[in-house]
């Protein structure tokens, strides 16, 4: 038997979370070190998966399959392909940096880290699941701790409202998706939740047209698709830093990923049928999110709405059903994940000192925390789609795909790039340049070395993909090539 690396990645966090609860709560130092050790190990494992993935090899790798409820055709079945391996790496990066950022959490750190790890397990589980039931199972595991993390550790002003809103949206979304999934299960007649088997089930066109929206929109809620995006900025703002990073960086990818895996890949004809709608909605996401981000004065709200805009590009890439669009969307998921994690990390760092995120009340932070400033600017350049950074590598193919199918949509969507530049420049100049406000003068200090390490790692990923797209694009292409065999993308070989 081969080394079950995926199962270890999936269960290491949740088991460690359980172990954490047995540590004495007053030993904060020990708790943090333990959490950091686990997070680092998880990160290393995700790196192993990423670099161990053989691009020339089989479609799914590191596969494991055990019976779970054989009577119902449910199995524990995991594996990664060229799309999900980068997402596993993304999750590893975000959990590791998220734990570093949370070193100073003073309210019940033990429970905080425990929930964070449960969340991580759920996320890993969704990315590697090849069984539809397992996917839903892990999906719920990921959503559940979000509620507690936000409601307990969040921003006092809105946390209860935001936590409730988020949970309701996501649960309702997943229930709708589940209905669609069950419809597939019964219609296939295969008595299995195995997604590889379901791919060949040959659902009729009318069946696909009817049920595709259930699955796609059910999951796309988590991806923040318009008009079901409102839970997300509120959630980002209310969540503590590490959770915001997870939330925007990874959790929203979960939605887009599941919409692809369960929706588009299992019901390609349904996808093709509903494509115009989805393009239109994601176009609204892209432009509308950018416009709203421009008006926000709270840094976290701005980033939250910018996520709505950028996630719109991911869904737009998928919805084009073109080869380029899929590749771009795959890169955009990673790029946006790392970028937003970096943004929220920086905001968290200065918020700890300034106790405000109102951009009008900030200024001159470049003088006290230049490292954080430069990292934020790098994130900003990614966000604007500057060549040389990962955002460009992602957006270029997406726009190519959109241009192929709907030139007019592409023309409208590029407006968002201009608006993005506007709000990013505004944020950078208000937060980091100008004068330090009088009431903050003398209360500020540079960020800690460990925090620099975290920001450095995130920025490194963004720049590496931007300068050497060869480190990621071929892997995502290998995934798209296999998808192409079942979905028949436009422009695919």
């Amino acid at each position, binding site marked *: 038997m081969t080394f079950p690396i995926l199962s270890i990645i999936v269960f290491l966090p949740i088991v460690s979370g359980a172990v954490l609860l047995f540590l004495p709560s007053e030993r904060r130092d020990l708790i943090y070190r333990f959490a950091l050790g686990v997070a680092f190990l998880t990160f290393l494992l995700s790196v192993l998966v990423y670099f161990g993935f053989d691009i020339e090899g089989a479609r799914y790798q590191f596969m494991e399959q055990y019976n779970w*409820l054989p009577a119902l055709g449910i199995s524990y079945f995991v594996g990664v392909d060229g799309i999900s391996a980068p997402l596993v790496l993304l999750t590893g990066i975000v959990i590791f940096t998220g734990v570093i950022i949370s070193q100073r959490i003073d309210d019940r750190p033990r429970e905080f880290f425990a929930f964070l790890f449960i969340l991580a397990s759920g996320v890993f589980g969704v990315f590697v699941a090849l069984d539809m039931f397992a996917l839903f199972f892990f999906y719920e595991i990921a959503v*559940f701790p979000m509620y507690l993390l936000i409601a307990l550790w969040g921003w006092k002003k809105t946390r209860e409202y935001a936590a409730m809103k988020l949970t309701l949206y996501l649960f309702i979304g997943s229930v709708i998706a589940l209905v669609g999934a069950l419809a597939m299960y019964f219609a296939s007649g295969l008595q299995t939740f195995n997604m590889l088997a379901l791919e060949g089930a040959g659902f009729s066109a009318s069946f696909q047209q009817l049920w595709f929206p259930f699955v796609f929109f059910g999951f796309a809620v988590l991806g923040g698709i318009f008009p079901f995006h*409102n839970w997300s900025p509120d959630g980002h703002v209310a969540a503590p830093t590490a959770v915001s990073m997870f939330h925007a960086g990874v959790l929203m990818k979960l939605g887009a990923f599941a919409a692809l895996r369960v929706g588009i890949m299992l019901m390609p004809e349904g996808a093709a049928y509903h494509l115009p709608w989805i393009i239109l909605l994601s176009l609204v996401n892209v432009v509308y999110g950018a416009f*709203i981000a421009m008006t926000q004065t709270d840094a976290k709200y701005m980033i939250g709405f910018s996520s709505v805009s950028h996630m719109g590009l991911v869904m737009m890439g998928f919805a084009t059903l073109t080869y380029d669009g899929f590749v771009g969307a795959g890169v955009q998921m990673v790029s946006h994940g790392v970028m937003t994690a970096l943004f929220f990390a920086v905001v968290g760092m200065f918020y700890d000192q300034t106790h405000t995120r109102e951009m009008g009340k900030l200024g001159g932070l470049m003088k006290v925390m230049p490292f954080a400033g430069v990292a934020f600017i790098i994130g900003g350049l990614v966000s604007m789609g500057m060549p040389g950074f990962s955002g460009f590598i992602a957006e270029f193919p997406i*726009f190519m795909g959109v241009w192929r199918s709907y*030139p007019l949509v592409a*023309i409208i969507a590029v407006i968002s790039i201009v608006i993005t*530049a506007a709000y990013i420049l505004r944020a950078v100049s208000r937060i980091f340049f100008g004068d330090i406000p009088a009431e903050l003068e003398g209360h500020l200090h540079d960020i800690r070395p460990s925090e620099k390490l975290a920001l450095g790692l995130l920025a490194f990923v963004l720049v590496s993909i931007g300068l050497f797209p060869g480190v990621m*694009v071929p892997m995502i292409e290998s995934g798209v090539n296999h998808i192409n065999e079942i979905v028949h993308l436009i422009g695919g070989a």
Partner: protein
Amino acid sequence: MTTETLIWLVPLPPLLAFFLILLFTKQNNRLSHLVGVGAAFLSWLLGMLVFVAAVATEHFGEHPFASSVGWLPLGGDTFSIGVLIDPLSAITLFFVAWTVLMIFIYSIGYHNFGQPKGDHDVPGLPPHGAKVDGHKVPSIEPLYARFFAFIALFAFGMFTLVVSDNLLTLFVGWEIMGLCSYLLIGFWYAKPSAREAAKKAFMTTRVGDVFMLLGIVALYSATGTLNFREILYDNHMLMMLASVDSGVLGLSAAGLIGLLLFIGTVGKSAQWPLHVWLPDAMEGPTPVSAMIHAATMVSAGVYMIIRMFPLLSAGWHAGGDLTATMTTMAFIGAFTALFAATIAVTQRDIKRVLAYSTISQLGFMVAALGIGAYISAAFHLVTHAFFKALLFLGSGSVIHGVEHGVLHTGEDIDPQDMFNMGGLKDKMPTTFWTFLIGGFALSGFPLITAGFWSKDEILADAFANGHMAVFLTLALAALLTAFYTMRQITLTFLGKPRSKSAEHAHETPRTMTMPVTVLAVFAVAAGWVGIPEHFPLIGGLLPNWFHDFVGGTLFEHPEAVEFNMIPLLVSLGVALGGLALGYLVYRNASAEDPLRKPLGKLYTILENKYYFDEIYDRIFVQPAKRFAENFSYLFLDRDVIDGLLHAVARASFSLGAIFRNYFDLPVVNGSGDFTAALTQRFGRILRRVQTGSVQQYMLVAALVTFGGLFYYLFRVLQ
């Protein structure tokens, strides 16, 4: 080392300098400028070697220097990036290398190297001067080292753009310059006007950039390549693109792609209607960044469309009807040339006159390309880069001299206002003579200046091919050009000083006068390489090298236009007439512009630049903000979508209550409805959370964790 290797190396020294200065030498001003200038010199040297090798190659157009490597895997095949030096990029590299090196050297003097630190100087503001032995003297720029880092990065962007063999890396260089222009215009970031100008420049050019990006995307979708030679030399493909309908505005695919790319140039080269950023960009350190924006970056926009000319003009043949895209270019170029020239006539700020003149001259090039005058456009690009660089550096020298007077006298006047100058001819002789040469070149002073030859060629081409509207518009613009140039020279250098500061102005250091002298040589000599063969008397004495060399870039060598007396006489007339008028009107000017009275209202309109800033603010900026804030965010997002959500939440609560009270309790007694149960479940969790009882939620966590695990293990073992 092969020439190809040298080309790869050309952009690298400035990039290296950027990192070296920021990481290591920031604290040491001397070391920093040595690194910066040294890098510019290395790039210059490499550029000259490449240029010489290019000139020495027979039939260079067919055998350019090219090499490439794989970079971005896209859609099954790999996207390669590489370098290409063909005749067009060779001459561009030539003028870029020279002007960049001169800017670097000039910056040393301009930022007062060798002067003491200012008494109250702060980073982010221009230096205020220092007191030494009771005298006020100029003080060194507080962020001296950083300036060299930024312009080094800028130079890297420009060199990258020039040596690129494909649109994507060209776009990379293009964007790097956009970013650097933001950093440099906002260099004195503590000045709100500089911050605003920086943002405006970045945002306005960005509007053009995204359309250019779309053009690139469209081109790649249509052809599967972005390599210049693969697209521009493939007649079959160009024909195909010219005949396929794009489905947008009735344009052909080539027409649409060309139009999108051209919008990029409209932004970058400050053409109407995206011209508004360039005059404000003069907020940058006078005049070095201004010169960068006027002589280097804006040239990139024109360079790109000259480069893509075969695509822009696909479907057109010499002498035939213009394509829709070309007509657009001809219209926008000619209109901008005239429009900006009229504004330049009324400006008081010495740099703003030059800024509008730049917009106008770029309009000449765009119009030339629009009517198919490929070589004239390239020729004017080169000569303009030299004389405009000269003029900007000269104006910086003037301002520097007057600022010196301001420090000396303590007067409170604007050192950039030409009406505060006058009589500087004797105080600053080198600056005067070089500025005069540059000004005459800009006006197209006959025979001896470079500007004459290139401008004349554009007019001759427009006339010969019967584009009379373009011809007349450009001729009128040329007349105004000569007029405002002479106005500027007269106000600045001739007559009597109109302020104490102007009396006390004196010549700037050698690090500033040397670069302008070098550029002055080119402002004259650069024209000699392109004298038409059939020009009366002197035609044919020197071979029309420029035409032969640059013409080789194209697939089909363009024919030189036949010589005609009429455009020559017109161009002589407007140049000399404009200069004479300018002198006559302004030779006795006082603090009041003599044109203000006769022009009346029109003068106010021109002075306010046709109110474009105000109009844009009214019709784009404010509505966009209102749309975003009031409609999208407050109304749609918060009122409608959230309002609906809250209504649903309230409804489900009441529905739950109804079910509970009227159905559940009396009827089922114990079971619940899905909606009600869901909402109530959360209510319960929330309540429990609010008790803050650690044990309780710990229990929840543990239960979930172990429950899930246990169930899983149980099943597996079974």
